[in-house]
């Protein structure tokens, strides 16, 4: 029998209730993470150092090559695109400023965030989702171990520690990408390019980039872990949790970038 279509208002009401439920479970989860971090600081949390170190390796070293490649290419693309317009004014040397400022201030962090969301955020969601489906999380709960303390906190901590390091690395690779194009194809003077970069990139821009990366680290880890923990107990559920973890992470990155950029604008930095 075909089910009668619900009215527009019923459907809108249903969506609003779902949104409300989703938001409150999200806030509950963030609250649990904060409490678990407090337990960790007090030395009361159930935390395995070995697991944490493996996660640090996965979030850091294992992601390095991909971050390097993408950042190098983004730096090159910026230099190419910038040169087209700047060439009209004979100001090609300002490519150094464009690449340096945009990479260090925001683009390295955003690109690193998107890569990490696709690679690490997805793996967090899939792992925890699979653990949910195979009752591994239930086994922790019946042992009296908080899954947030044991599984989520090490993941959030590892990613928050690694994101700034990856972003600094991406800054360097992005600037290198711009340098390669400017010197190799646009025939700019390497010393002049380097000096322009040093003059354009202020230390405050590096800090702004690092703040972006810290915020993104939290967003990606929390989104991946939240979706994994909310996963339905079947294979399709794991797939949905993984997709949702990445989508939530990237949406969060874009929204956070807008907010941080606005705050910087208001503060005049």
């Amino acid at each position, binding site marked *: 029998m075909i089910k009668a279509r619900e009215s527009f208002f019923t459907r809108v009401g249903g969506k609003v209730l779902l949104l409300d439920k989703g938001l409150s479970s999200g806030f509950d989860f963030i609250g649990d993470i904060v409490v678990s971090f407090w337990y960790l600081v007090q030395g009361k949390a*159930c935390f395995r150092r070995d*697991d944490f170190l493996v996660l640090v390796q996965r979030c850091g070293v294992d992601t390095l090559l991909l971050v390097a490649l993408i950042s190098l290419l983004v730096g090159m693309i910026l230099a190419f695109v910038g040169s087209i317009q700047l060439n009209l004014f004979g100001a090609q040397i300002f490519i150094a400023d464009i690449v340096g400022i945009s990479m260090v201030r925001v683009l390295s962090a955003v690109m690193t965030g998107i890569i990490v969301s696709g690679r690490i955020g997805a793996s967090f969601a899939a792992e925890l989702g*699979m*653990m949910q489906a*195979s*009752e*591994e999380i*239930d*086994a*922790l*709960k*019946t*042992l*009296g*171990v908080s899954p947030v303390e044991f599984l989520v906190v090490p993941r959030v901590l590892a990613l928050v520690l690694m994101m700034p390091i990856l972003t600094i690395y991406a800054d360097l690779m992005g600037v290198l990408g711009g340098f390669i194009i400017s010197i190799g194809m646009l025939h700019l003077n390497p010393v002049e390019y380097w000096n322009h970069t040093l003059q354009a990139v202020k230390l405050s821009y590096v800090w702004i980039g690092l703040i972006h990366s810290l915020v993104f680290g939290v967003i990606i880890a929390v989104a991946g872990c939240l979706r994994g923990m909310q996963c339905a107990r079947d294979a399709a559920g794991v797939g949905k949790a993984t997709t949702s973890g990445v989508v939530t992470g990237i949406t969060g990155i874009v929204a956070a970038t807008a907010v941080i950029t606005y705050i910087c604008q208001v503060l005049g930095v």
Partner: protein
Amino acid sequence: MSSSGCPVIEVKDLELGYHDHIVLHDLNFSVNKGDIFVVMGVNGCGKSTLLKSLIGLNPPLKGKVIYDGKSFWDEDEAGQHNIMHRFGVLYQSGALWSSLTVAENVALPIQLYKKGPPREIQEKVALKLSLVGLEGAGDLYPAEISGGMRKRASLARAIALDPDIIFFDEPSAGLDPINARKLDDLILELRDSLGATVVVITHELPSIFAIGNNSVFLDSESKTMIAGGDPKGLLANSNDVRVTGFLTRARIEG
């Protein structure tokens, strides 16, 4: 070892469900010390829902689950954890932590709650693994062992803290008849050697008659328990066609 008549678990007026959907209601039964208590019924009758409420994963809509006089769901978090430390649970899928080796899976509960030097913990782990016949498998990961071995490894983890009560969720599911029989023997052996009370969720008739000495029968239509007691006694004396039909695998018209 046999049942002592002293109730370890008492279930009173328990109602289980999710939001407005009631899965089971009016459950009243008790499990005595040393019992092998079987929760049986057809698929979808709420056996796993009942287990989740007994082991502290799903709060009931109403009613009480009482462990040695303490109402589990009325306790605070610390009180609930104290009761939970007396459990061992063998999940249907084994639920071994896949990133840890078999030995690490068994060691984790001991490291968390018993502490002690690493060598002592290793000895305890080796003992638990030998109890379930898994000597030499400690360094393997769950993905590298068979389904039967996974169940036994999970059992070794369930008994790691020498629990008073061991819960088994469909222990024979996915096992061939020989391994299922071996697991039944192991359950009897562990009950006798550890002096534990055992609660088994199952619909496998050979297991029910081989190990169970007390039971409750859940019915999916009335959403409550419709019989209880020794499974062999139920088979001999029950007049309820749903119970005898289940226990004899008879075809029920209707």
